[in-house]
Every structure is written in structure tokens, then in C-alpha cells.
């Protein structure tokens, strides 16, 4: 589904990604971990098409299409979704109106008829239930005055509504209490299928207890320095990142 080859990118003058290689297939869940400033969120931003990131080298293939060549809205229409680390508050745009516009723009792109009010309402009710999202929040202005946890849950609700092929959750677990974390995780688990894939960006192993990944990658200094299965996450939790950094530096010296 997603093939990242030798991706280099910078923000302003600072190079952040220095050769990322990653393949994500349908049905898989990948976790990306790593110390602060290693480039995890930057990877998510580059994939979603944030403007201030400049790709220097490499390519990203998304279901046979050149992802980097597309506008942010076309990436979303092709089935890419990023749950924001810091969702934006937009007073005056109602949550529901926003979602309806988004869903119908995606449907138009796929040459599907727009949903009428009734169909949309039914879908929205169904998904609210699935991800346990408060109906009161649905009619409020987009994220305005939402608590940190409510914002993150709104991201998962949007994910459920838009049914993307590939979802990137950028530190969705940060700032969540245990109950909210469980709700978010159970939402994601319900949405997992053999046809879609997830990339979880996280600092903590805790999230991975709830959403069990197929693969775990460690990002350090703009590169993936180690990949493994869920056991790697446990090892990291125990030992921290320093042992990996040392091995990585030794390797670099040898090279």
C-alpha cells in the first residue's frame, strides 16, 4: 500500500529526514517509536503534505500513485488520513458540517454520489457509537473548547467517518488518561481490517498494549535504525533508546 524509498526532507534549513525506507501493506499496523526530535512527527507531516516541509530526495508510492506529487486534499481523497498531534480549533465551523463537506468532497473525487442529509446522519450516528464519541460534541464548533482528550477522540471519529486506507496516528495517545486511551484504542481496533493499514507514532509502549502492532520501528536522527515485532517495543520500554543509539553510531563509524 505505502512504499517509502530513501526519503529525505527538511523544514526551513534543518534536515530532519535522512533516508527513510518503509513498506506498509494492507492489513498491517506499524508502530514508529523513537526519542524526542528523531523525526517521527515530521514523517507524518511530510506524508500528509504539510506546506513548510520540503522533500529533498526519495519517493513515496501510495497504491501505485506518487504521493509526494499530490496536494494535501488529494492525498486525503486517495485514502490517507493523519490524526493530528495537536488538532486545530476552528470556531464557527460546525463539526458536523465540516465532516459532511469532507466526506462529500472525497465521494465526489471517487465519482460517488454525495450523501443526502438522512444518509449522512445515519452514518454519523453509527460511527459515533462505534468510537464512543459524544453526540453533543458533534454539533459544536470544530474542536472549539474541547478538552485534549475530546480533541483526540474527535480525530478518531473523523477517521471512522472518512474510512481511509492508511491512517497515521501522530502521538494520538499523548495527553490521554487511561479511560480515554482505552476508548481511542478500542475505536481503532474496531476499524482495523484486512484492507486498511495504520501507522502509530508514539513515545510509549502503553498504547501498543491496546493496539497490538505487527511491526515496530525505531526512528533516530532521521532514519529507521531498527525494526522488529511488538517485542521490540517491550525491550525499548525496559532499556530506553541509548543502547540503540550506541549500536547505530558504531555502525555509522564502521560504514
Amino acid at each position: 500500500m505505502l512504499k517509502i524509498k530513501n526519503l529525505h526532507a527538511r523544514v526551513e534549513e534543518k534536515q530532519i529526514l535522512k533516508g527513510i525506507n518503509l513498506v506498509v501493506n494492507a492489513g498491517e499496523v506499524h508502530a514508529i517509536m523513537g526519542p524526542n526530535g528523531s523525526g517521527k512527527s515530521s514523517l507524518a507531516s511530510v506524508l500528509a503534505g504539510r506546506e513548510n516541509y520540503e522533500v529533498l530526495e526519495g519517493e513515496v508510492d501510495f497504491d501505485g500513485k506518487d504521493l509526494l506529487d499530490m496536494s494535501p486534499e488529494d492525498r486525503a481523497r486517495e485514502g490517507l488520513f493523519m490524526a493530528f498531534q495537536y488538532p486545530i480549533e476552528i470556531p464557527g465551523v460546525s463539526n458536523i458540517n465540516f465532516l459532511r463537506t469532507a466526506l462529500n468532497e472525497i465521494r465526489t473525487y471517487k465519482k460517488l454520489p454525495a450523501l443526502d442529509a438522512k444518509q449522512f446522519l445515519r452514518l454519523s450516528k453509527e460511527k459515533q457509537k462505534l468510537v464512543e464519541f459524544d453526540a453533543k460534541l458533534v454539533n459544536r464548533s470544530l474542536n472549539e473548547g474541547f478538552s485534549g482528550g475530546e480533541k483526540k477522540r474527535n480525530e478518531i471519529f473523523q477517521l471512522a467517518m472518512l474510512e481511509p486506507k492508511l491512517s497515521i496516528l501522530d502521538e494520538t495517545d499523548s495527553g490521554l488518561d487511561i479511560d480515554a486511551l482505552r476508548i481511542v484504542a478500542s475505536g481503532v481496533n474496531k476499524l482495523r481490517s484486512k484492507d486498511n493499514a495504520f501507522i502509530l507514532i508514539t513515545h510509549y509502549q502503553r498504547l501498543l498494549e491496546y493496539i497490538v502492532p505487527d511491526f515496530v520501528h525505531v526512528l533516530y536522527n532521521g532514519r529507521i535504525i531498527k525494526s522488529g515485532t511488538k517485542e521490540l517495543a517491550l525491550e525499548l520500554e525496559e532499556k530506553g533508546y541509548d543502547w540503540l543509539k550506541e549500536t547505530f553510531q558504531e555502525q555509522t563509524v564502521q560504514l
Partner: protein
Amino acid sequence: MTKQITIPLYEDLLNGFNNTSIHGENETIQEARRNGFESFKRLGFPTRKNEDWKYTGITPFLQEQYHINGIAKEAEISAALINQASIPSLDSYRLVLLNGQLQTPIDTLPDFIRVKSIREAKENVDLVKYFGKNTDVNSFHFAALNTALFSNGLFLEIDAKAILDKPLHIVHAFTATGNLFIQPRHLIVVHSNASLSVIETVVSENPLSKIFVNSLTEVVVEENACFDHYVMQIAQIGTRLVHQTDVSQKRHSVYSNYTFSMPKADLIRNNLHVSLDDDQTETHLYGLYLGEGQQLIDNHSFINHKRPNCNSNEIYKGVLLDKAVGVFNGKVFVQPDAQKTNAFQQNNNLLLSNKATINTKPQLEIFADDVKCSHGATVGQLSKDAMFYLRSRGIGEEAARALLVNAFAFDVTEKIKIPALEQHVNHLIAQHIPVNKN
């Protein structure tokens, strides 16, 4: 007057007055006309040296050879012109004025509401009582000129304790084959305990001929009365609007004005004056201006707190595209007697182009010591983060921009009490935003 030497129109208007027969009009109106004329002769047209016109140079709009006939020549009214004013799914009564002249037949209205052309109503007690009473012809150039030379207009009154069940939609249509300088004059009286909702829509056609409209509306809101006053300005290129509204509020009355200035007209200058003449009144002024092309939209408001315990609330929002220029001047005057005044004012602007300009000036003058007043003005651009957030959900750039502009206007549009009108305004906003490519 030497300062008017560059404007031949000034001479034409002076001659125009001398040639206009005011014979047969009510003595009060004749008197008002003479005062207005003397004052205009002295004031002339404003220049940028007048503080109130510092950012709005009016001279370029006065250069054309205008027809200044007291009463506009017969003009044909077209369905297309009227259609511009239509508001989908609005249930209302409707009146149409063409070049300031009330068109017949008039919709059947309930008995408690009276509509006449202002010339026809000349002996009406309330017309005589209120005409010109709340308009300061000594300081306002265009008000003086309008008072001296107004052609015709509408006299509207609603009886005490009456409530009109649905809004009254007044369409002010302007059309001309040559250049026309036209001066309608209206008076609306809402008697005590009455409740009225009026939507005035200004439309025009034929961008080839220049139409200069200098209109003046006097409004009287009597004790305990409530008046929702909506003004939609959707005139075409070639049209210049100078519009003054002089409102007088009596005890316990509520006046809400909603002014929407939409793209195209060359110039829109609104003078909105509200005089709080008695205790415990409530005033809401909401405005939204959307400028594009080379448009100049200027809103000057003046709320005069004369008596204690009055509340006023003003929110104006501006969106400027292309090379449009906006001006906002919100003056709040709190007189020594007006203790316990609450006055709130806010003006926010969104500049969607590097070449758009806004001049904004909140102006509080407070002479009482026990009052609560606040004001604020902002100028900004669309948030890049918000744009990216919307686009990352599959919403195209243009639709995202329209959503954000509608959201910006929301503080004002949500105050509209007529759902069909709210929808229409949001639609007009969305319609005008995507065409801009910065």
C-alpha cells in the same frame, strides 16, 4: 465656494435646488429643505481634509455628468433586476421601489401597517412630527444635500402594539440608461410596543451608467418597541452608495441593525447614527462587509448614549480581497447623564490579498464615570494551520477557504434571526470567496 471648484456637480445641484418647485409640500418639509440647502451650500462635498472622510476620497465618484432631476425619469423595471434581490425560501411581504419611487400595486398588508410614498404622505401627522428631527444637516454633507433635494421615498409606520407576523422585504432597485444622481428619503416609525422586522435590499444594474445614490433613512423606535432592521447592499459595478441611517430610540426600545455590504458596487459609505434618547434602551449593530476588485466600503457608526442604563453592542466583520479598501470608524459617545452605560464594540478584518487595505478606528468618548465600555479591532489573514487541517481531510483549497471565511463571519451571521436570510448571506459569502486566487 472655492473648495468645490473642481466639482461641477456642486454647481448643478445648487442650480437644481433653485429650479425645483417645493411649492405644495408641507411647511415643515419646505423648511427642512431650505435648511438643508443652506447647509449644503456652506459645507459642499466632503474632502479628505474632513476627519470623517480621511480614508474615503469621494471626489473621483463625483466627476461624471449626472442627471439630477428631482424625480427620476420614468425607468423600466426588469424582472432580472428584482430577482437579484430575491432571498430563496423567504416568507415575507414585499415592496419594490424603483429609483426611490414606490411601485404599485403594493402587496396587501395588514391594516396596522401603513405604507405611502413620502410625497403622498405629506400631511401625515407622524411624518410632520418626525421628518428631519433626528438628522443633523449642519455637520453631515450628504444628509444636508439629501434633505434639500430628496426626490421621493417611503413612509412606513406600524401602529402601537402591532406585531407584523413576517418580515417586510423592501427592494430598492436602481437603474438608468445615463448617469444618474438620485436621492431617496425614507422614514420608518415603529410606534410603542410594536414589533417589526424589515429587510431592505439594494440592487442595481447596467454597469455602463454610473448611478450615485445618496439615500437617507430616518428611524424612530418608540417606547417598548422592537425593530429588526436588515440592510443588504448587493449593488453592481458602476453604483455608488452613500447611505445614512438616523435612528432615535425611546425608553425600553430595542433596535437591531444588520448591514451586509456585498461585492461589486464602486463605493459604499454607510453612516449609521443611533441616538439613545431615553433610559434603558438596547442597541445591536452587526455588520459584514465583503470587498473585492477596487471596491471601497466605508462604515461609519455613531452611537450616542444620552441617558442612563442603556446597552449597546456592535460587531463589524470585514473580508477584503483583491485591491479592495475597507474603512471602519465606530464612534461611541457617552454623555455625562448616561451613567450605567454598557457599550461593547468589536471590528475584525480578514485580508485575503496582499493588496487589500483596511483602515479601522474605534473611537470611544466617555463623559460619565460609572460606565462599562470596551472596544477592539483586529486585522489578520486565514490561519495556515486551519487551512491545512481542512485540506488534510479532503476539502479542496477553495472550499476550505470558503468554510473559514464563513466561520470568520459567523459571529455576525449567527445573529440573523431569519433562517432564510442567514442561509442566503452565507451563500453570498461562499459564492464570492473562491473566485479569488490571491
